[in-house]
């Protein structure tokens, strides 16, 4: 499925300064029972966001109306644990288009890239700067430029570059996915398979 194109994103950010946020927190397993990709945003961070009786936990950042925006900023090692793409779907479905952290777990990063959510890895120092800027002023805007591969704190103009391979960058800029690419080389794959016994 092709996804939204990503070019330049300018938005305020939602800070979650916790390390090792695992995908069981992003979306608990009991919400993985759907057979369609729908409604996962409602259960994003379910158990941090709601009490067992489904009333909101007021101190949790998603329940604090002063924080909003399309960018989620998380602590080191974001997205560890289960391979559930539902975690990336929940992030997307809630309305985030970009996750910023100083370190991402591999599978979560891949899953994000495969659905058009941009994972932006910054240095621990720059992550700290973002957290401090957002803490000081929740309306602080970040600008993420995929063509330039830069992230900027607009208020202070502090910025940093981030890495993404050329292939994925091109895909995200155009909203292409890997299956489009692979279906185009099916002949080559079939030839390869002939030489590869079961």
């Amino acid at each position, binding site marked *: *499925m092709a996804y939204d194109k990503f070019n330049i994103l300018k938005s305020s950010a939602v800070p979650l*300064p*916790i*390390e*090792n946020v*695992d995908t*069981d*927190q992003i979306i*608990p*397993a*009991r919400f*993985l*029972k*759907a*057979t*369609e*990709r729908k409604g996962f945003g409602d259960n994003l961070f379910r*158990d941090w966001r709601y009490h*067992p009786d489904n009333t909101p936990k007021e101190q949790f950042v998603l329940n604090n109306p002063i924080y909003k925006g399309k960018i989620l900023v998380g*602590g*080191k*090692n974001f997205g*560890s*644990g*289960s*391979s*559930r*793409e*539902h975690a*990336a779907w929940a992030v997307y479905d809630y309305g985030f288009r970009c996750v910023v952290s100083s*370190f*991402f*777990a*591999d*599978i979560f990063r*891949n*899953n994000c890239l*495969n*659905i058009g959510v941009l994972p932006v890895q910054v240095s621990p120092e720059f992550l700290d700067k973002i957290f401090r800027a957002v803490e000081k002023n929740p309306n602080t805007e970040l600008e993420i430029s995929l063509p330039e591969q830069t992230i900027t704190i607009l208020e202070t103009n502090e910025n940093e570059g981030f890495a993404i*391979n*050329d*292939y*994925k960058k091109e895909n995200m800029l155009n909203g292409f*996915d*890997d*299956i489009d*690419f*692979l*279906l185009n*080389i*099916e002949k*080559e*794959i079939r030839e*390869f*398979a002939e030489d*590869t*016994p*079961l």
Partner: protein
Amino acid sequence: MSKTLFDKVWDSHTVQRIENGPDVIFIDRHLVHEVTSPVAFLGLKNRGVKVLYPERTFATADHNTPTLNQHLPVKDKLSANQLKALEENSKAHNIPYWGLGHEKNGIVHVIGPENGITLPGATIVCGDSHTSTHGAFGAIAFGIGTSEVEMVLSTQCIMQPKAKSMRINIDGDLNIGVTPKDVALFIISKLTTSGATGYFVEYSGQVFRDMSMEGRMTVCNLSIEMGARGGMIAPDEKTFDYIKGREYTPKGAAWDKAMDYWQTLYSDEDAVFDKEIAFTASEIEPMITYGTNPGMGMGIQNGIPLANAVEGGNATYKKSLEYMAFNEGEAMIGKPIDFVFLGSCTNGRIEDFRAFASIIKGRKKADNVTAWLVPGSHRVEEAIKTEGILDLLHEAGFELREPGCSACLAMNDDKIPAGKYAVSTSNRNFEGRQGPGSRTLLASPLVAAAAAVTGKVTDPRELMQEVIA
């Protein structure tokens, strides 16, 4: 040029290399389960494509299945719907489907090796992070997301950059009471949950050479818990003996040809790894976790580390202990527990049940403990019965459930209640992993058994010595 084991398998499966991009990797065998596949099948439908190689694809129901009364219709409507979707999708695409009640049904990472789907030098993927289990056979095996499941169904390939390589060597003899689970929890406690992110790990040294195939599976299974893409162990005679004659293993001339390839699967002597780490076996004690990620583990006799002695975020560490209702410096030994879970793709095999039985034999389940013992497959369940382990369990006051992932991720009814402590042989102690508010202590089957009969965290070596005396 000299190559690592990982290089050899990866390079031989590279269909195309994209400059400053990923490699196109051909996947030999694809395992599918009910939770991460329905949206992928939907994707195929929307694109109007079929599964390219159904004969390389195998489907089982495990994540979202009850472990009691599997012969009855599944009560939870959403779960039943998901199971039905997998059954229908498998049928529509000619994929073998081993649903509830099928003799080959079980946890995807248990039945792969059992049926000879898992082979040395193969590339194996599944929409489940513990796919790394299959690396025990010298395969490149790793978990993928649903977009990638769709990719493999439709094109038998994925696109990923090649991981960096890491070798973890452990020589020496393991101490008494130290199991493969302890070895893995020890490594993760040293590396942290992100210490191997970006790497594919090869385990080497005497400890892994001496280990059984099932032990190797436990170790490779937990590779993802230190962030690694996967883990693998070079195949040897033990590996070949294990797989020979299984249903999906090559036969006759094909076996001989495969053996020629398999015997080349080792890291060349002068192969260079991006990172090398070494431990000695004698350092490792029976382990237990005290926090909310698998890296928060320690020797069972130790005290919970002080926050200021822990690398990284103090706030995160304190939040974790608060969730567990533990304090810095406390001993874990003697802490009362409520539940014991034996099972999962980590420790749901016959050797795990043998280990558990060795401790509970002649003892009784503690009254304060609810124990869920869940075999990894029907084959494991069968062995538990034929080896007389079921009788031992019954005599000690335990019941056996039916196969599935069960309380490891608590998608079904097997949920640890809020605030309760579970000593669990599974793989993750994340907040709420085993049910909202549940508190998990990860440990080996021996530690789980010791907890089950004493009702508290107990060093299994104490009970083993009694047996010896």
